[in-house]
């Protein structure tokens, strides 16, 4: 059996497979369907300083091999998360990654302060949510803004800080470098690509929010390319995601440069997708006679 252990931003992961923020809630629901301790980590639903109701429905639309979502960061707020969800999450033997979004740099910092002693293993700084007006992607599309959020969170946080990048930019490597220089311990990418669907009978956008974030297999080749570009640009470790459905996809993402991977949309098709992806990686390593999963990260052979 191949060794799936990875140390990522100083945190030991049993497997390189985590579940993506916003697709797994706070873990309870899928916890009824499989043993959460089989996961490398759980990235919880995006948190904000204050509770949010999110956008009105419909919040999802299907696209060719993809989905658009416009949840808009519905969440109970960081305080209730710490009080109501962390006790359960702390009982698990897997890494907990808190995903945070703020309207201002100060909000990000305040959340990082609150979460630092709450028992989470990593803080993921979401500067890439396409579904909220203030904050979110606005921070992710400018090097300066991305760097200042990173700096503020890094200064306060007592756990490793991972910054989540948006694919809706001209040059993702440039943003990655700015975030690395500002002290990020790791990067995650990609968040969703901004998209739109229109119902031609009613002439209305399918999503109440008009636009939404594209995820799923459709974005996979874009995600692989971006992970590869970012791998080339920075030294800090990368959590790669975007359309991973199988162990083969995960291996491809790792060859491109990811140290660990996240599985999101795939869960909607198969609730056990993250486990199947983990098994698929292990099978690949065995077939190729590779002992440690860490040996494949970034090992694409360019033409």
């Amino acid at each position, binding site marked *: 059996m191949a060794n799936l252990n990875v140390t990522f931003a100083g945190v030991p992961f049993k497997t390189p497979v985590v579940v993506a923020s916003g697709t797994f809630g706070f873990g309870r629901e899928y916890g009824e369907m499989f043993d959460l301790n089989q996961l490398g980590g759980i990235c919880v639903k995006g948190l904000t300083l204050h509770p949010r109701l999110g956008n009105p429905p419909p*919040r999802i639309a299907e696209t060719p091999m993809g989905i658009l979502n416009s949840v808009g960061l519905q969440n109970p707020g960081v305080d209730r998360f710490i009080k109501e969800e962390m006790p359960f999450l702390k009982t698990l033997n897997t890494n907990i990654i808190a995903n945070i979004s703020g309207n201002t740099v100060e909000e990000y910092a305040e959340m990082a302060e609150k979460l630092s002693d709450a028992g989470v293993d990593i803080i993921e700084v979401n500067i890439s949510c396409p579904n909220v007006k203030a904050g979110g992607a606005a921070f992710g599309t400018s090097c300066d803004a991305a760097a200042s959020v990173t700096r503020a969170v890094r200064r306060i946080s007592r756990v490793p800080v991972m910054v989540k990048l948006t694919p809706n930019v001209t040059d993702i490597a440039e943003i990655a470098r700015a975030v690395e220089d500002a002290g990020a311990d790791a990067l995650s990418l990609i968040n969703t690509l901004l998209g739109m669907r229109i119902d031609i009978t009613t002439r209305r956008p399918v999503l109440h929010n008009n636009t939404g974030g594209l995820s799923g297999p459709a974005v996979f080749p874009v995600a692989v390319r971006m992970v590869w570009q970012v791998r080339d640009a920075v030294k800090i470790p990368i959590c790669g995601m975007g359309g991973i459905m199988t162990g083969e996809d995960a291996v491809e993402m790792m060859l491109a440069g990811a140290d660990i991977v996240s599985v999101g949309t795939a869960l909607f098709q198969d609730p056990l997708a993250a486990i199947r992806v983990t098994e698929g990686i292990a099978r690949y390593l065995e077939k190729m006679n590779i002992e440690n999963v860490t040996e494949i990260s970034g090992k694409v052979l360019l033409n």
Partner: protein
Amino acid sequence: MPITTLATVQDTRMLTESVCKMVLFSPELARLAKPGQFVHIKCGGESLLRRPISICDVQEDTLTLVLERKGAGTQYLAERRAGDTLDLLGPLGNGFELPDGKLLLVGGGIGVPPLLYAAKRAKGADAVLGFKTKSAIILEEEFQSACGETAVVTDDGSYRLHGNVTVPLREMLHRGGYAGVLACGPRAMLRAVAEVCAAFKVPCQVSMEERMGCGVGACLVCVCETEKEGERAMSRVCKDGPVFRAEEVCW
């Protein structure tokens, strides 16, 4: 606790030009399923998302679904034949509460099917079923044998009563004797039913529809705005619903 399972299609039949009845062999789901719950079905390799379909009936080891062909997903389902397998996730959702006493079931169009299983499990039930037109009527006989009284209305008056479900609903509530109303159908109908029930002070449960992702309550895409004890919330149709107390829904 939902499970994923492969169910074998035992039988399929078109009830109308576009509505298909499908019997699936799945002992586990048949054992677990409660009225008002649904299954989330994988529709081949071309549709990324599963499709939510209510459980219409349960018999020993089988599940009956009744579904309308609308887009690619339900088209795929309607094309399945005996012997094919389907990948189901379920049973999902809270289902109806079945209080002691006689219930009044109010269904509209493709919202009718889940009420059949409720009728069978209830301690007595009457039904009001509404359809667009005569050719769209489904399950009338099944309700007639499961219920005391079954009123059928059509929008265009092409069969039985002319008009909408609230007419017989009012009459029957007026007569009285119901412990509650369970309703499933288009949103506008549910709202109207809720208003009538409120006027008659009869507890009403409504089964809501929303586009879904995970189906299990994790992704928050399927919400319905609710208000309970003064607190507004975006409740999950797949997990907190699909059945809600009518008075909690923000219409």
